[in-house]
């Protein structure tokens, strides 16, 4: 069967790699009740963090990835905080958290500055002026040192969930 569709190749990314300290940032962190400015370093101060960059709330990859992360619930079995980041507004995040029925908190970064800092921006074709993070996963230890990283090289693309779980288990 010849499936006639295109997976978009993304440009090479220039992101920080394993062993490097991930850049700190402050953004509104949204939970199911409110949002407030929180630093990434405040989260890592409590232990390892899985920082999940994903695409805007409402597209199908965002739904797929958070359904998967919710169902796998790694934080039940391991000492890890799972947190997301997209360009969606706090209001959209709050709705998304409710719809996905998940316990995870989401950073809101409409101007995409964090993805820029991490070298993983993706300018969207056909949506003038909108840039968002390409899908990416950074596993950080308590010092924000990167223990594992995956960055999408094509679009759409999803992390290898089993591999991420192995890395979390190996911390």
């Amino acid at each position, binding site marked *: 069967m010849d499936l006639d569709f295109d997976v978009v190749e993304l440009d090479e990314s220039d992101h920080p790699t394993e062993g490097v300290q991930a850049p700190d940032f*402050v953004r509104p962190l949204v939970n199911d*009740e*409110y*949002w*407030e*400015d929180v*630093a990434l*370093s*405040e989260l890592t101060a409590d232990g390892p963090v899985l920082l999940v960059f994903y695409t805007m709330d409402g597209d199908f990859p965002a739904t797929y990835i958070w359904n998967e992360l919710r169902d796998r619930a790694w934080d039940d079995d391991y000492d890890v905080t799972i947190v997301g980041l997209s360009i969606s507004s706090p*209001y959209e995040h709050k709705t998304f958290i409710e719809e996905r029925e998940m316990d995870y908190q989401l950073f809101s970064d409409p101007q995409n500055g964090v993805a820029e800092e991490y070298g993983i921006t993706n300018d969207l074709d056909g949506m003038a002026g909108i840039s968002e993070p390409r899908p990416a996963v950074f596993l950080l230890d308590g010092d924000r040192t990167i223990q594992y990283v995956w960055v999408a090289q094509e679009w759409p693309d999803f992390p290898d969930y089993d591999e991420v779980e192995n890395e979390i288990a190996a911390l």
Partner: protein
Amino acid sequence: MSDSAVTDDPSITLYRLQACPFCERVVRTLDEYDLEYRSRFVEPMHSERNVVKRISGNRTVPAIVDETTGVTMSESANIVGYLETTYGNGA
């Protein structure tokens, strides 16, 4: 607020709604007395404000929690009066 204000864990938490003039009145007073505070934003719908009800007993904003004095309070006039009395020039 600067980044350091965020990470310094201020003792005052303000529950607020975007574009709410009563909330801004409290913000102005906090700024006037150079008080550091943490902003927690809630949604316009009252039914979506359970966190505020849990801390203050009702769903209105603004509401503040001051861990230094152990005070939790609603209603902007009350809050402004409290801040003046506790942190104002006459305090």
